[in-house]
């Protein structure tokens, strides 16, 4: 394992300190329990809080700021944060209109946010994101995982909250965006968790992992490496099948997010975008909003995920509205 680190135990605090210092106009970092908030507390709005294991940067702390999150709770690498972090963050950003937690659907995240919610002394609600369509047999399991689509949920809900909307409306929009969003990921290499010091899985030069999450868990299937169009086609089919299974009409406008897992260059991400947009168009899905880059990563994994969000007027409005965070910024 070769990484820019000092002591493994200090990675998080050193990195978060650097983050907070580089973006001190936007965010403030509190240590022990760890959480980050906007530098200027927002008033008269639902407080939007997210969190999860670290290693997915810029998720979630990179999305703190106007039009998106009020606070984020970073856990250890790939490990859900703990309830005391969420309580402290909620206490700090709560502005009398309640607290909305945006939580990726993993056992650990769900349980920790649940325990925090049970202790929370004010109005609150939770949106669970579950956009990963890789795990098909979902009745079998605790449900699908939340992956890169979470960024779209956070953007839209954050935008609505900024208008002064109430907690129930924010939650409803979050659920709607989540329902209309479907993702699938492909890994070409494993990532290396710093504390483990070695790759989570081994993979040959001729193989890929189809349907991976964002934690270096093996995917649904080990497959042969093949050309980009063939890989992307399988991803697009999985997404379209998922929309159909949810009875969502696919002949409509959509947002296409091509997300890098951390070690895949932009050149390849745009090539994937090119391929995906073409294949989606052939299915009647017309891409009118785009995001390409590293938005929900898995440390140093080479790979990418494709996310499609079926737009409607409300989602478009909240996607387009101004946002000003370290990792997503437009309109101001």
């Amino acid at each position, binding site marked *: 394992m070769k990484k820019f680190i000092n002591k493994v135990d200090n990675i998080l605090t050193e990195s978060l300190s650097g983050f907070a210092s580089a973006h001190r106009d936007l965010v403030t970092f509190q240590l022990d329990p760890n959480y980050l908030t906007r530098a200027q507390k927002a008033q008269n709005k639902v407080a939007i809080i997210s969190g999860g294991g670290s290693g997915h940067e810029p998720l979630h702390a990179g999305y703190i700021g106007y039009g998106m999150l009020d606070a984020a709770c970073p856990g250890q690498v790939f490990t*859900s944060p*703990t309830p005391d972090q969420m309580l402290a963050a909620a206490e700090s950003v709560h502005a009398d209109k309640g607290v909305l937690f945006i939580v990726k659907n*993993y056992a650990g995240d769900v349980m920790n946010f649940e325990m925090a919610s049970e202790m929370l002394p004010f109005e609150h609600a939770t949106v669970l994101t579950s956009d990963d369509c890789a795990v098909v047999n979902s009745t*079998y399991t*605790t449900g699908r995982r939340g992956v890169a689509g979470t960024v779209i949920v956070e953007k839209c809900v954050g935008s609505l909250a900024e208008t002064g909307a109430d907690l129930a409306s924010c939650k409803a929009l979050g659920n709607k965006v989540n329902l209309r969003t479907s993702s699938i990921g492909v890994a070409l290499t494993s990532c290396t968790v710093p504390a483990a010091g070695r790759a989570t899985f081994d993979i040959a030069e001729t193989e890929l992992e189809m349907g991976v999450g964002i934690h270096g868990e*093996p995917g649904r299937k080990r497959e042969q490496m093949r050309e980009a169009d063939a890989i992307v086609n399988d991803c697009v089919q999985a997404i379209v099948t998922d929309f159909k299974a949810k009875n969502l009409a696919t002949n409509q406008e959509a947002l296409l997010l091509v997300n890098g897992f951390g070690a895949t260059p932009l050149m390849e991400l745009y090539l994937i975008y090119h391929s995906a947009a073409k294949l989606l168009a052939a299915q009647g899905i017309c891409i009118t909003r785009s995001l390409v880059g590293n938005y929900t990563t898995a440390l140093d994994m080479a790979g990418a995920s494709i996310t499609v969000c079926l737009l409607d007027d409300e989602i478009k409005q909240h996607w387009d509205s101004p946002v000003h965070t370290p990792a997503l910024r437009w309109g101001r």
Partner: protein
Amino acid sequence: MMKTSFILSASLAIHAAIVAHEAEIESLDRAIGDGDHYINMKRGSEVIAGMYNELLALPEDDVLNKIGMKLLSTIGGASGPLFASFFMSMAKVTKQNVADTPLEVAAAFAAGVQAIMQRGKAQVGEKTMLDVLVPVSTQFTTLAAEGKSSIAIAQALKQTAYQGLESTRNLIATKGRAAGLGERAIGHLDAGAKSCQVMIHTVCDLVIKGAHE
């Protein structure tokens, strides 16, 4: 039986045992999870071991509750809230009824396992720590009700824990991260089941050793 001094000795022994099993626990969660379970268990058990002096003078239920609260804010992940719920629930039962006899301890343990099941919404057979904890708890209660000695119970439970662990090998996971893997999880033991087996083994050995002294 479950005095503060015993709980604290157990916490030291558990920390040592977890560290001693680093390679096994780590590789299991790496194979079908996300590779952090060993680190989580080490972080948790280390912090509790470090509370030794602070807890020494406290009553049993307080000790258990403080352990639960501390694990809750230390471990994170899936195992954090589960182990926290275990100890906090044991503490509640112990407060109502000091766990002195094996039957009382078994009841407290059962309450802890119950709390894990509720928090995780899981059952036996889903390839989780419950595949160790539930059979151990059931047998604990049975043997204690039959009036078996602590030492006999401890010996039996080591065996049961091991069988529970082995039972996870051929399961498809339907809870936790391995649930995303479908059939690929078959052939691998569950990491959380492994650390539970290690902890139960360690505590049972402590009981056996204590009874012989």
